[in-house]
């Protein structure tokens, strides 16, 4: 099927942009889930929530400072605490400079922590980065469909390598353990909004989106300039017969994937905290003790009975044992899984004791 020129000239450059936007929206949904979980555990884990707030504000403030630095506005004041962060420029710059600074402020926190993780992954992952080599993709035609396929293929290769790394992560290796720790640590901070002390106002995804929408609506000319640059970049790639244009957006896609996985892992930890909160007394510590113990037991077991899947199996043992221990504790120590028939039986029993 021959590609129409309108497809190549008008629609093809939009393909990777739409791909990135899609991932970014998925990221926003996951961020919302993280915020929801944090707000649920806030009453019992105030310092923990303050810590995650600090991380979020830290990234936001750094992004803002980065924006001022790039636009050569300079920084006259840099203030940060657990509730609030403020960066003031030396020179009040208007126009495109102000807009670029705001882009950094609103969009930066979604990508900067992931970028730090990407740098770490570059040293840890054995595969996943190689596919963006333009020479391998020169045969691609520059249509919308082909561009989106190229974007997806690149993303798939990275995701494959990344998940392969995650499933084979060696928690006894300091670099791997450090990466996981950093991932959880940064995962807690990949959110641009603050979770308030009290329910003063609802700060949610819509609030974030409103800020970004205002940024674009107030200065549409800059958005148009951005699109013009994107199109020029695409045409240069087309003219040179390379795939640099897609490669650029693929990097943003990678960042989204890393953010998504970080948030999911952070969410799992938040769910564990929320669940164990229901268990009273010392028993609530057991699920946390199960995590290192089960992993170590798994590793020792597979050390004596070697298999090809020692690391993934140990991770699987860790996950399953933690879930099992938590489930048993919830069932035994709380009323969470007590069914109606159980309650009826209990009532009958109590009645019998009373009558007897």
């Amino acid at each position, binding site marked *: 099927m021959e590609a129409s020129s309108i497809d190549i000239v008008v629609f093809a450059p939009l393909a990777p942009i739409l791909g990135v936007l899609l991932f970014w929206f998925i990221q926003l949904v996951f961020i919302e889930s993280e915020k929801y979980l944090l707000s649920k555990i806030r009453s019992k884990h*105030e*310092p923990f929530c*303050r*810590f995650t707030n*600090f991380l979020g504000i830290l990234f936001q403030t750094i992004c803002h400072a980065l924006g001022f630095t790039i636009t050569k506005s300079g920084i006259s004041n840099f203030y940060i*605490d*657990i509730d609030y962060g403020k960066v003031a420029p030396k020179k009040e710059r208007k126009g495109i400079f102000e807009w670029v600074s705001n882009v950094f402020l609103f969009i930066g926190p979604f990508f900067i922590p992931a970028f730090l993780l990407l740098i770490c992954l570059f040293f840890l992952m054995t595969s996943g980065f190689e596919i963006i080599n333009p020479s391998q993709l020169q045969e691609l035609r520059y249509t919308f469909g082909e561009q989106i396929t190229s974007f997806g293929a690149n993303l798939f290769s990275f995701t494959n390598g990344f998940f392969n790394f995650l499933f084979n992560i060696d928690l*006894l*290796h*300091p670099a791997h353990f450090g990466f996981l720790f950093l991932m959880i640590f940064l995962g807690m901070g990949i959110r641009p909004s603050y979770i308030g002390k009290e329910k003063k106002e609802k700060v949610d995804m819509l609030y974030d989106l409103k800020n970004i929408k205002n940024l674009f609506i107030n200065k549409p000319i800059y958005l148009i300039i951005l699109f013009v640059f994107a199109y020029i970049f695409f045409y240069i790639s087309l003219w040179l017969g390379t795939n640099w244009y897609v490669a650029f957006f693929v990097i943003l896609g990678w960042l989204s994937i890393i953010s998504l996985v970080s948030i999911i892992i952070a969410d799992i930890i938040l769910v564990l905290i929320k669940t164990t909160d229901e268990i009273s007394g010392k028993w609530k510590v057991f699920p946390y003790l199960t995590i290192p113990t089960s992993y170590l037991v798994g590793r020792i077991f597979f050390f004596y009975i070697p298999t090809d899947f020692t690391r993934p199996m140990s991770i699987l043992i860790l996950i399953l044992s933690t879930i099992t221990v938590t489930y048993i504790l919830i069932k035994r120590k709380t009323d969470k899984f007590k069914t109606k028939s159980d309650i009826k039986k209990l009532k009958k029993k109590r009645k019998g004791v009373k009558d007897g």
Partner: protein
Amino acid sequence: MDEDELLNGEKIEKVLSPHPLSFMRYQSLSLFLIIWGILLLWLVNFSEWNNIFSQSEWFPIIVWGLVLLVAGVIASIVTIRWSIFFLYLLIFAGGIALMISQGWLDASDIFIPSYTVSISIIGFLLVEAYRQSHKYYISNQRITFKGGIFTKQERTLRYDKITDINAKQGIIGQIFGFGTIIPISQSGFGLGSDKSFAGGGVSLGEKKVKLFGLFGGGKDVQTPRARSYYELHGVYPYKEIKKLVEQMVQGNVITPYQQEQVAFQKEQVDIQKQMRDLLKMQSGSKIDQKGEEENSE
């Protein structure tokens, strides 16, 4: 604080101790040791580079000592405290002395990590003991600070002697809700100074004539600072305690308006006293006059 230590009418409002994480600057020294110990264990025994370390028993010792001393230098420069470097140097020297004296050089790959981790655990315990030795008593009349493991330090500060209150809260403090409050007394207790010095030298001439000059300049900045047993170090809940101390100071320190009022009241009392004396004198003279009149009659 014992009953017999209390003054007349003194009532203890709060008894405080520093938050477990408030001595993080000391705990972080031990934390570094424990991390480095574990990392070294992995590096020497399980990593892909373990062959390099197995070539000589001195390799693990050199790497261990080098990292330890470099970390000590960095920490000392950052905190402007050379005691950290000397502490790490002592740990390094102690480790080597122990290995040589006991003939454990062959087992350096196991001994060094175990020794480092053991030292860090001892460090943690010492910091914890030091923290627990601190007690602060906030009464309705004064603040009593007590601290020290072997030498017991104590400071008593009456609220009317407090001129300023300095309060600080680091990031960990903000997260966990603790902070440090330094009450500064009229004598300047609670103040320290940051010194900075810049010096430069120049040498002129190479063969016969040599000129040498040295230029220097120093700067001194007063800053609120006290030992942890002379301040309310890392107290929890910070905001509540800060408010309490400020209220106590406010309640015990007389304001300019109150001073004016007291002076005015004194003036009034003096006038009244004078009037009373005058009246007494007047009534006295009247009685005398009456007596004289009666006598003359």
